[in-house]
């Protein structure tokens, strides 16, 4: 199924790179993909987000107005994007930072304590990989292998040692939700 999702959070939570990894993985799997960031001064300290499309069809507008899924890494993100999820769609909430429940009842909502899981793994910065794992588990948008493949491309050989940690984070994410 075509994925049109929004990933949103504070600057520094790695929402942009999470989106890029996913897009890259989609490309590696031969799908049509696009990635579109929010940009501009509001990013400064505020909330940043990106739109990702992974589809077999042609990608028209890269803007996601009606999302198949939303990943909200913080409270402002949830408040802003909860309503854009299509009925029957998916909302993944980073429950480590959002201690509120979603209002929508017509969508599938998962709460993932991504920061806590990442902390358990010894590195808060992989919270994004945890949540990405959850997303993959729910949607099968791309394979985990493709994600790791893209990650290798992004990190380059000098940072190859980070792969196991990221793979572990992904795995913990997949385990954190029901498929």
């Amino acid at each position, binding site marked *: 199924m075509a994925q049109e999702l929004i990933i949103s959070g504070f600057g520094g939570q790695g929402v942009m790179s999470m989106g890029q990894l996913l897009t890259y993985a989609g490309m590696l799997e031969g799908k049509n993909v696009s990635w579109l960031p929010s940009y501009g001064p509001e990013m400064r300290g505020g909330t940043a987000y990106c739109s990702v499309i992974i589809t077999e069809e042609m990608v028209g507008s890269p803007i996601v107005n009606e999302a198949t899924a939303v990943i909200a890494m*913080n*409270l402002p993100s949830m408040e802003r994007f909860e309503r854009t999820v299509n009925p029957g769609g998916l909302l993944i909430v980073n429950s480590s930072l959002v201690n509120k429940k979603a209002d929508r009842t017509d969508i599938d909502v998962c709460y993932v304590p991504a920061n806590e899981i990442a902390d358990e793994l010894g590195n808060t910065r992989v919270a994004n990989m945890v949540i990405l794992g959850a997303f993959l588990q729910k949607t099968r948008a791309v394979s985990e292998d493709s994600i790791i493949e893209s990650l290798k491309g992004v990190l380059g050989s000098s940072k190859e040692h980070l792969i196991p940690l990221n793979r572990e984070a992904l795995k913990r994410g997949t385990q954190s939700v029901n498929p």
Partner: protein
Amino acid sequence: MAKVTFNEELCKGCELCTTVCPKKIIIMDRERINSKGYHPATIEEMDKCIGCAFCAIICPDVVIEVEK
């Protein structure tokens, strides 16, 4: 005796106030997080404050008010 008040919602957790306090009584509150997502600065031992206002002078966000 002096009193320092933090307008916590404005604090961006930059920690500059902590570096200039001669009494080193300002700490970042790791427990709390304001709506902007920052751990705010706070004082636990207010009685040690000498009201020098250094913290307020360096704060870029006018978070701090000082009374003496």
